[in-house]
Each structure stands twice: as C-alpha cells, then as structure tokens.
C-alpha cells in the first residue's frame, strides 16, 4: 500500500471505512439468507403450501344457495357446523356443539357450544351467531330450505346454548342439522351484508380462511389464526387451483406442479396406481347414477315396460364401459353407503330373456322410439348413453341420443320435457330421508320429475320421518326400497366412488363420503 499511487493513498482512509461498510453489508446479506432458510412455523421438511388441482372452479361461497360441489367442498374448509358428519358417512361428531340433548317429548333439541371457537375475525362464536345463521338458512328460499323446515323455533338460551324446537319429533333432525347449508356465520356479517358479500368474502370459524380469490383460477386460503384447535391446520396455506382438462390436471400432479388432484377419470386410475410417486384413491361416496323416466308418457307409463328396460341393462358391462370396473352395479335407489341400505336386495340383475318376456306381457309393440336426454360434454354421461343405446336395441327399443349443454338440458328436464334423462345424486346427509323424499315423494320435485306418485309410498315416507325407534325405522326404509324397485319409476345404474390422486408425500388427506375433502390434517413433505 505504501507504494500505491497518490490517488489510492488519499482514498485509503475512506477505503477502510468503505471496506467496513461492505463487510457489514455482507454480514447482513448472509444473515438474511440464513433467515430465509430458517425454519418457519411449518414443521421441518414440510411444505408451507398445499396445492390442490380441481376440475371445476368455485364461483360462490354462500352456504345456503349453492348446489355445486366445488363451492360446497371449498367452503367446508372455512365454516364450521353445530354437528358434523363423520368420515364414513354414517354418523355424527361434535363440531361447534360439544354435546347435545333432546327433550323427553323429542321436540326440543339443545346444543351446548364450545366456548373457545372463534371466527377468523377474532370474535368468539356465540349462540346468537348460530341462531342468525340457522334462521337465515331456514327462511331464505334456496335448495336447502328443507333442511330446517321442521324447526319451528330457534333461540339462544344463553351465550353458549342454542335451543331448537320442532313442530313434531323428527327422526333425521341431527342429520339435517349437519347439512353444510347450516354453516355458522357471524351474526354481524349477516346483519350488515350487502348482496354478494357472503358469497365473495365468507367469514367462518373453520381451520382456513379465504385470503385471495382469483375467480375461475385459484382460491388462496390461509390458516385461521383464531382456530380453536392448537396446531391445526397442520399446513398454513392451501391453494385450490382450477385445472379443467383431465389430462393437464393429471400431468400437473405427476410433474409436481400440484400436490394432489380431484376427479382423475376412471380410465386413468389403474395407471395412476402404478405410478410410484402417486397414490390413487377410490373413496367411498354417497353417489348413485340413475335414469329418470317420464312416467307420464306412453309407453313409459306402463310398469312392465319400465321393468323390462331395467332388466335389459347389463350393469356389469356398463360399469366396465363407464367406470373401467371401479363402480358397483346399483340395486336399490339408495347409495350403498347410506344408513339403512338394504344390502341383500337383488335389484334388477341383467336378464335379457326376462326383459323380452316383460316387453311381450306389456303389450307394447316394438320397435319403440325413445329419446335420451343428457349433458353434452360429460365424460360419464356420454359413454352411458352410447352403451344404453346398444343394450336397449336388443329388446327393440331405439334410443335417440340427445346431448344438450347443461343449462338447456336442465331446463328441459325441469319442464318435464323429456323421456329418459341421465342424472345422478349425492346424499348430503347420512340418512335415507333426503333422497327418498326428493325421488319418491311427489311434492318436492315430482319424484325426480318422473311424475311418480303413490299413496302407499307417501305413507311409508311420512312414517319414516317420524319413527324414532331405529329398528322400526330401518324396516320402514327397507319397505321403501322394495316398493321403489317394484314400481320402478326410475332405473338405478351404479354407485361410483370419488377418485383422487395425490403425491405420496401428502399425508392426512381425508374425503368424507358426502364429498368434501378435509385439509385440516394434511402435511406435504418436501
């Protein structure tokens, strides 16, 4: 340094200061780097964000108006209920209510709320929130109003006790209360909500809260900081990404872009199961696929004709064609996971000879021309339609396929402007009463728009809602299933499981039989 030019000499003093500053800056930079690598609130070696790809986008998160699964399954992460359905779908567990009692006359149910549940705003969940939410669900016209139609009076007995008085003792009441439309929303939000607020900015007490919503693209959910269960949710952030194309969605989970996906097509399940990185799940569901027949029109008004159609379907072959073998041929009208499902019922086994015989006995001249209405662009409806066409041709029925876009098809169906319609049902409660009323009891939907009306059935259904003895109730619903098969107003095809494919690094994902996934327990390792 002594020999360096004058210029350097003069800067030397400043240079050492500069050197010191540079060293200091370097230390800070290194420190920051390590800070970035420092363990966060997530467990060591675990990802901080769960990315899940779905085939339909959520568009509205208001629990009382929504019918579509993507919405329901999304808001189930955000809200809580008094009582929730267990995983198997055949019982209940406490959620916001720690315990509950029934009055001796069966008409009043009292729910005792836990005291430490809080909304994502920090407010404690209180009885008046429950009352406001349930009253809103009961009094607003929507697809789930029936869930609380038996509730005459809902009031807060004290800050943490809710009493619901029914018009009469109601057997499926607990099931009804567990319906997702009875989600608990803060009373403040309900009172001050402008139209669209609850749909777009849901506030709940569940493990996650909505942080950002890119409509039609992605939902970003973060942990509810006030969630009462310490240590949950196990992962702090959940992103639900909309990837509509089946192939692209599968590639996304195979390449690691997302950690899991829903609804991989049945045809891909075997292949995904063989992938060493992935776990392909077939989860029991409360789903059943069936055909609604317009019983008002000839020749569908002839019961022997309907029975012939039912016998002429080779359900095992249908399951091969549509589900690649992973579904179960249907027997009764109930999904097989429903409590009181009659497992020993034979349904309509494939019997071509019997079908032809019934056709003859019905006296209906062949060939018969029938129109089959279904949703275009549906990976399941189209192969069903094509298979049915070939099967029914064997008994002299010409099936004319009429695929329409969903809105047009639904409109025709609701106007009873159809002959045969492919559709399906998912139970939302672990009880046969929901489907039985909708499908076989004329008042709600004209019996799935088939027009079926039977005094005998109506009597059975009414008794089923009020019979409190479990054994007697089971027998009633067995009778309902048998009668439905005998009258055959609809034709039941198969029960299908939910399909999910996740990276093996994801642990703890649970899917309820009613459909919603539970992300509370999920961790994804790096």
């Amino acid at each position, binding site marked *: 340094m002594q020999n360096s030019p004058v210029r350097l000499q003069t800067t030397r003093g400043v240079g050492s200061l500069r050197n010191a500053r540079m060293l200091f800056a370097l230390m800070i930079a290194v420190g920051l780097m390590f800070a970035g690598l420092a363990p966060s609130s997530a467990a060591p070696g675990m990802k901080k964000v769960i990315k899940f790809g779905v085939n339909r986008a959520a568009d509205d998160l208001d629990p009382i108006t929504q019918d579509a699964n993507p919405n329901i399954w999304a808001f189930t992460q955000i809200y809580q209920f008094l009582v929730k359905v267990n995983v198997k779908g055949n019982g209940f567990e406490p959620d916001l209510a720690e315990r509950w009692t029934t009055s001796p006359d069966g008409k009043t149910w009292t729910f005792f709320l836990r005291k430490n549940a809080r909304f994502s705003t920090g407010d404690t969940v209180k009885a008046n929130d429950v009352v406001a939410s349930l009253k809103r669900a009961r009094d607003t016209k929507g697809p789930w109003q029936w869930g609380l139609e038996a509730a005459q009076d809902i009031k807060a007995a004290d800050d943490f006790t809710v009493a619901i008085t029914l018009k009469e003792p109601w057997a499926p009441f607990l099931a009804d209360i567990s319906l997702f439309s009875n989600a608990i929303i803060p009373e403040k939000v309900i009172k001050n909500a402008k139209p669209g607020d609850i749909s777009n900015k849901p506030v709940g007490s569940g493990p996650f809260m909505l942080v950002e919503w890119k409509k039609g693209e992605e939902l970003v959910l973060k942990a509810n900081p006030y969630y009462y269960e310490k240590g949950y949710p196990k992962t702090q952030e959940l992103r639900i990404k909309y990837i509509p194309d089946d192939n692209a969605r599968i590639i996304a989970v195979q390449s690691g872009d997302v950690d899991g996906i829903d609804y991989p097509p049945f045809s891909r399940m075997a292949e995904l199961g063989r992938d060493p990185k992935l776990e392909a799940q077939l989860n029991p569901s409360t789903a059943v696929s069936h055909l609604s027949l317009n019983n008002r029109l000839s020749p569908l008004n002839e019961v022997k004709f309907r029975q012939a159609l039912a016998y002429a379907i080779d359900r095992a072959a249908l399951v091969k064609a549509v589900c690649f073998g992973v579904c179960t041929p249907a027997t009764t009208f109930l999904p097989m996971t429903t409590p009181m499902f009659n497992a020993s019922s034979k349904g309509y086994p494939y019997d071509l000879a019997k079908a032809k015989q019934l056709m003859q006995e019905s006296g209906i001249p062949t060939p018969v021309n029938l129109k089959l209405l279904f949703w275009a662009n549906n990976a399941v409806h189209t192969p069903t339609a094509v298979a049915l066409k070939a099967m029914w041709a064997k008994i002299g029925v010409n099936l004319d396929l*009429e695929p329409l876009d969903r809105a047009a098809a639904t409109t025709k169906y609701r106007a009873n402007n159809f002959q045969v319609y492919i559709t399906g049902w998912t139970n939302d409660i672990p009880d046969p009463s929901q489907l039985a009323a909708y499908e076989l009891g004329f008042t709600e939907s004209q019996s799935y728009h088939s027009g079926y009306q039977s005094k005998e059935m109506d009597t059975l259904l009414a008794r089923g809602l009020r019979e409190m003895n479990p054994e007697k109730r089971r027998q009633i619903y067995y009778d309902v299933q048998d009668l439905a098969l005998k009258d055959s107003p609809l034709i039941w095809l198969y029960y299908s499981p939910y399909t999910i494919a996740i990276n093996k690094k994801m642990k703890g994902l649970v899917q309820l039989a009613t459909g919603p996934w539970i992300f509370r327990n999920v961790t994804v390792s790096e």
Partner: protein
Amino acid sequence: MSTLVQEQRIVADTGGRPRLHPAMVIGGLMLLVIVGASLLAPVLTSYDPDGQDFDQILLAPGARHLFGTDNFGRDVLTRVLYGARIDLRIGILAVVFPFLFGSLVGSAAGYFGGWVDTIVMRTVDVITAVPFLVLVIAIVAFLGPGEVNILLAIGSVGWVTYSRLVRGEVLREKNLEYVAAARALGFHRWRILLGHVLPNAVAPAIIFLASDVVLVILTTASLGFLGLGVRPPSPEWGMMISEGREFLSNGWWVATMPGFACMYTGLMFILLGDGIADLLRVKGQ
C-alpha cells in the same frame, strides 16, 4: 445465381403453357383412394362401426384390429373409414360454399367500392363480432346437435375470411393496367370482374381453402371437446378425436388414428389446392 438467369427462369414460368402439376396428380390420387375406401367400407371391413364388445376394449393395434379398439371395443379402422364419408362431406360443404359465396361477395365489394363495399364489410364486421361459439351454442340449442346444424354454423361464419382475402386482392388488381385496358375496350363491368380480376384475386383464397378444410374438421373436434359436436355414436373424426382424448396415455390410437386421417386429408387438399392455384396463376398472367 446471376440475376439474368433468374429472370429467364421467371419468364419461362410464365410462358403460358399450363402443365400437369405433380401436386395435383398426387392429390387427385389421394382423393380417389380415400373416397374409394370410404364408399367401399362395408366391403373392406366386416366390423360394425357401432359394434360394442366389452371384452375387447382398448386393444392396441394388431392383426385383428389394424387400428386397435376404443373404450367400447369398437374397431377403430372401421370407424375411421365410415367417418371418412362424414368428414369429407363436412369438409367440402363447410368450405366450398363459403368459398364461393365469400369470393363473389368480397370481389364485388372490392371492385365496386362505395355502398356495396360498406354493406358487405359492415356485415363482415357484425359476423366477426358475434362470437362463433355463441352462434354454435344457439344453433345447437334451437335445432339440436347434428351434422347439418354444425355445417350451418361453420358456413355462416366461414365465408367472411374468403371475402376479406379476395377483396384485398381485388383492391390492388383493379388499379392495374390490364383492367384499365379492358375497360377501354368496352368490356362490361361484371365480365371484367368475373373473367379477369377474380381469377387473379382468388389465389390466396384457394390457398387458404386447402388449410380451411382441415381447420373445419378440427373445429368439429373442438366443438366435440366443448360438447357441441355431432351426435354420438357418430364415427365423425373430430368427435372420435375429442372422445378419445381421455385415453391419450393408455389408448393413444383412439384419438391419434382419426388424427392421422385428418393429416392425410389435409395433405391431400393442400396438394390439390396448390395445383389449382398454380394453374390459375399461369392462366392469369
């Protein structure tokens, strides 16, 4: 290569003697093959295009099924052959009529100008503005799905491109010397337009037509993708490609074989189109 030699080559090309273009020959042969195969389908294959066999689903191409089977056990080769009838029909109808109509209208608009141009071009604006899919969904919703309705939808929109292409060329052509000469000679306006200007202006439209046929067939695939295609179980190629996309990884032949058929047809029309365009180019000089 010196400029002089190049000029000579160009002059020789415009010598005025149309020769039998090799592209047209090959294209013509390909057309004969596919039309013949589709008409003779019942003879060439013993399978029923709708014949389902659930024990034979998704078989890879082999001796008994040259193109394999689909998810219903139907023979893919049979379906491709029967589908050729449908797709050739759709391709030609959905393209030829729009081409004829669009070229005529476009050339009139370009040549006469004024209010003719305004009306035609504003109509083009309106049609371009209506989203194609709204139109298709509307037609399908009112008239039901099916071949005729798809043709209606595609045709009513397709003529627009041809009209704009031809109009652009005509706008240039009409100011050229030979047109002025013809006018001076007293030829009638329509004769000039149809006999002289149009053949020169139509080359880009013909080139595009060749591509358009393939695009139309692929449009039916896209419509199938969106649920608006022809009715199942029709063996139309576009629908086969769309329905087969679920099996790209475990049954690639279901979607790819009709895709190859599309490529074959595309190449065929391109060759034919190039040949015709060359003929016209030589003639017009």
